[in-house]
C-alpha cells in the first residue's frame, strides 16, 4: 500500500511540475491550430475593397486598441475623434481596449499569434516583426485612394512606418523632449534661467542638489523611458548613433556616442546630481518627485505638463515650472529622442473597410491636432491648430528638426534596445565606463545580434524609401 501511495504521489508531483512549467511553454507560441492571419491584400484589392465599402448598410463593430489609459487626458483627446467618427458614420461602432502601457506590445504579439488581433491599433516595438510576418495591412494603396498627403508628415517619423520599402502604418504622434525645470528651486539656487549648455546643466544641477533635492531626474526603471526620455538626447546632440544608417553595424564605439554617453553617465556617477532611486524610477515616479519639489530638472515630452499638475494641482505653469530646450554642447545643436506611436490595420480584420475609414478620419490635420493635443502632431499642417501654436510649445518645435529615433525601425530593434537598456543600467550603477560599455555593446551587436537576423533571412533593416 505504501509503495502504491508513494508512486501515485510521485506521479502527481511530476505532473504538477510539468504542468506548472508548461504554462510558460504555452505562452511562447500560438500553436498551429490557431487561425493564421490572412496574407496582406494586394494594393488593387484594397482599393476595390475600400471603394466597395462606401454605402455599406448595417452596423459593423470595429475593435481598436490603444496604449493610452482611459483616464488620461491624452486618451480623452482621442475619444473626441472617435466619438465624432461614429457620429459621422452611424454604421460603424468603435469599441476600444486599453491594455496596460507596459504590456501593450506583449498583448499585440500574443493576439497576433492567436489570430485574435484588433481591427486597428497603435503599434510600437514589435511593428517591424508584425509587418514582416504579414500581420499588418499594407497602406500604400490606401494612402493613394484617400489622397493622403504623405509629404505633410514629418519625414523622420513617416520613415519609421516603412518596412521593406512598403508602408504598413501611419504615424499618429511624433514627439520630442524638452527640459522641465522647477522655477522656484532654480531661483533659490540663484538661477533665473534654465541651463542651455552641458556645462551650465552640470553647474546648475550641482548647486541645486542639496537637502533631499536633486538636480537631474532619471527614469531608469523602464526600458523605453530610460533610452528615449533620458539617454538619447546626449548622443544625438553630439551626432552619435547607436546603429549605422544602413543598419549593418553598431556605432557605439565611435567618439560621438561615447562622449555623449560619458556626459550622461557622469551626471550620476561623478557629479551625483540624480536621485538615489534613479535606477528604478519610472516616469510616474519622476513626475511625482518633480511635483513635490524633490527634483529640479528632468527631460520629458509635452504631456509632462499635465502630469506634473495632476501630481500637484497647486503648481502653475510659467510661475512654478516651465519647459525649455534640453541643454546641448556648446557649438552643437539641440536634439532628443523622437518618439511617438503608429497606427496600423490588421490583416485578420474582417472589417478592414471600416478600419480604413477610421484611419482616414483620424489622419486629417484637424483630427491629428485634436488627438495629439497633449503630445505633438505628425503632420505639419496640424501645427496650425491649438494647442501647437501656443508659445509654450516653442522649445519642442525648436528641438523637433533634430529629434531622431534612437534605434531605427528594424527587425533586430527590440533585441538591440533590450541589450542597450541593460548597458545603460550598468553605466548608471558605475559598473563600467561609457567607453567600455559602448565598445562591448558594439561587439555584441555586430558579432551576435545582427548576424542572427541576417542568417534567419529577415535582414537587418527596413529599407526605407526617401519620402
Amino acid at each position, binding site marked *: 500500500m505504501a509503495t502504491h501511495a508513494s508512486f501515485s504521489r510521485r506521479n502527481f508531483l511530476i505532473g504538477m511540475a*510539468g504542468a506548472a512549467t508548461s504554462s510558460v511553454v504555452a*505562452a511562447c507560441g500560438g500553436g498551429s491550430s490557431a487561425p493564421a492571419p490572412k496574407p496582406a491584400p494586394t494594393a488593387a484589392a484594397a482599393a476595390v475593397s475600400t471603394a466597395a465599402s462606401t454605402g455599406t448598410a448595417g452596423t459593423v463593430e470595429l475593435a481598436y486598441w490603444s496604449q493610452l489609459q482611459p483616464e488620461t487626458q491624452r486618451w480623452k483627446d482621442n475619444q473626441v475623434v472617435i466619438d465624432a467618427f461614429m457620429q459621422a458614420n452611424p454604421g460603424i461602432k468603435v469599441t476600444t481596449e486599453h491594455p496596460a502601457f507596459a504590456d501593450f506590445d506583449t498583448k499585440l504579439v500574443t493576439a497576433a499569434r492567436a489570430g485574435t488581433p484588433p481591427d486597428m491599433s497603435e503599434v510600437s516595438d514589435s511593428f517591424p516583426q508584425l509587418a514582416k510576418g504579414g500581420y499588418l495591412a499594407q497602406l500604400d494603396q490606401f494612402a493613394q485612394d484617400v489622397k493622403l498627403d504623405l509629404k505633410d508628415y514629418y519625414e523622420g517619423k513617416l520613415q519609421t512606418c516603412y518596412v521593406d520599402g512598403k508602408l504598413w502604418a501611419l504615424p499618429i504622434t511624433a514627439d520630442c523632449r524638452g527640459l522641465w525645470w522647477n522655477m522656484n528651486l532654480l531661483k533659490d539656487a540663484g538661477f533665473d534661467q534654465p541651463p542651455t549648455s552641458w556645462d551650465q546643466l552640470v553647474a546648475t544641477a550641482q548647486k541645486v542638489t542639496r537637502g533631499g533635492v536633486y538636480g537631474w531626474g532619471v527614469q531608469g526603471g523602464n526600458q523605453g523611458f530610460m533610452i528615449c526620455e533620458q539617454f538619447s538626447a546626449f548622443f544625438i546632440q553630439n551626432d552619435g548613433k547607436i546603429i549605422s544608417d544602413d543598419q549593418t553595424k553598431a556605432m557605439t564605439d565611435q567618439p560621438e556616442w561615447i562622449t555623449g554617453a560619458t556626459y550622461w553617465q557622469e551626471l550620476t556617477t561623478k557629479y551625483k546630481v540624480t536621485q538615489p532611486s534613479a535606477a528604478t524610477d519610472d516616469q510616474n515616479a519622476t513626475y511625482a518627485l518633480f511635483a513635490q519639489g524633490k527634483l529640479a530638472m528632468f527631460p520629458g515630452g509635452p504631456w509632462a505638463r499635465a502630469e506634473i499638475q495632476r501630481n500637484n494641482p497647486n503648481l502653475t505653469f510659467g510661475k512654478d515650472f516651465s519647459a525649455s530646450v534640453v541643454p546641448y554642447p556648446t557649438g552643437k545643436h539641440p536634439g532628443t529622442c523622437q518618439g511617438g506611436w503608429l497606427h496600423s490595420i490588421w490583416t485578420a480584420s474582417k472589417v478592414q473597410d471600416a478600419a480604413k475609414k477610421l484611419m482616414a478620419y483620424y489622419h486629417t490635420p484637424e483630427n491629428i491636432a485634436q488627438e495629439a493635443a497633449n503630445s505633438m502632431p505628425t503632420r505639419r499642417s496640424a501645427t496650425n491648430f491649438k494647442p501647437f501654436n501656443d508659445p509654450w510649445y516653442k522649445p519642442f518645435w525648436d528641438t523637433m528638426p533634430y529629434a531622431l529615433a534612437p534605434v531605427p525601425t528594424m527587425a533586430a530593434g527590440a533585441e538591440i534596445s533590450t541589450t542597450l537598456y541593460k548597458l545603460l543600467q550598468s553605466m548608471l550603477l558605475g559598473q563600467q565606463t561609457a567607453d567600455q560599455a559602448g565598445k562591448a555593446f558594439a561587439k555584441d551587436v555586430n558579432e551576435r545580434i545582427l548576424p542572427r537576423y541576417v542568417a534567419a533571412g529577415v535582414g537587418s533593416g527596413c529599407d526605407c524609401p526617401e519620402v
Partner: protein
Amino acid sequence: MIAVAPAVPAPRRLTYRQIYPYLLIAPSLTVFALVLVYPFVDGVRISFFQDTLMSQSRPFVGFDNYRVVFQIPQLGTVMRVSLTWALGSVVGEAILGMVVALMLNRAFRGRGFFRSLLVVPWVMPAVVTAVIWRWLYHSEFGVVNQVFGPLGLFPDKENWLGDPNTALWAVMVANIWRGFPFWMIMILAGLQAIEPELYEAARVDGARAWQLFRYITLPNLRIVLTITSILSFVGNFNNFTLVYALTEGGPVDSTKILPIFIWETAFKFTRFGEAAAMATFFAVLMAMLILVYARTLRLRSREV
C-alpha cells in the same frame, strides 16, 4: 462425434456503478487536458520549428533551437539567479511558515482571526504585492529606509530594487512574505494530525521544547514538508509576475529568472521556437530533479 464449441465468455458489461467515478472526474480531466496538457504538448512541438513572428513559414529544424539556446552566454547567469531565487524563497518561506504555524497551533484568544489575517498575503494578487513592496523599498518614500535608515545598518537612501547587490534579496523577501502562508497552512494541518499523547509521553520523560520539536514534530511532518517543499520550489521556480512587476529582471539581469528570460525571448524578440525549447528542456529537467528528490526522501523515510 459432436464438436463442442469452446465456451466464449460473454463480454463483461460495465455497470453504472463502475462508470460513475469516471463521469465525476471527466470534467476536471477535460479542463486539465485543455489547459495544461495541450499547451505543454504544443509547446514541445513548437520547440522543433523555426517559429518567429517575422515569417508565416515555420520550417522544422529538429534540435537546432535547443542547440542555439545552450549557446546563449546569458543562460548561465539566469540559471544561477533562478536557483538562488527558488531555493532561497523555499527556505525563507519554510522557516517563516513553520514559526508562525507553531505559534498558531497553540490555543490563544483571537487565534482564528490571526489565522485568517495571515493568509491575506497569499491570496493577494502578485501585482498588488509588487506595488506595495515597490513603495516600501523606494529610496525616498519607502518605509524600509525610514525604519532602518536611522539605525545606520544600511547606506542612506539605499535603492533596494535598483542595486544589483540587493535587488534579488529584496525581491525574495517580498516573495517570502507572499508565500509563507501556504507553508503555514500545510504545516498547521500537519501539526494538528500529530497525536498529543506523543508530546505528553515525551514531557513525562523530561524532554525539552527543542527535543519535542526535533524528535516528534519534525519526523511527523516529514511527508507534509516533502510535498510542500516540492510544490513551493516548482511554484517559485516558475514565478513570473512578482519579479517582473518589481524589477523586470533588472538591474543588469540581477533578478532575471528563467521565466522572465523565456518571456523575453518569446514576446520581446518574438523567437517562439527558442523560447519553447528552453521551457521544454527545463520542464523535463525539473521533473527529473523532483523525481530524484522525492525518491531520496522516500528512501530516508523508510530508513526512519
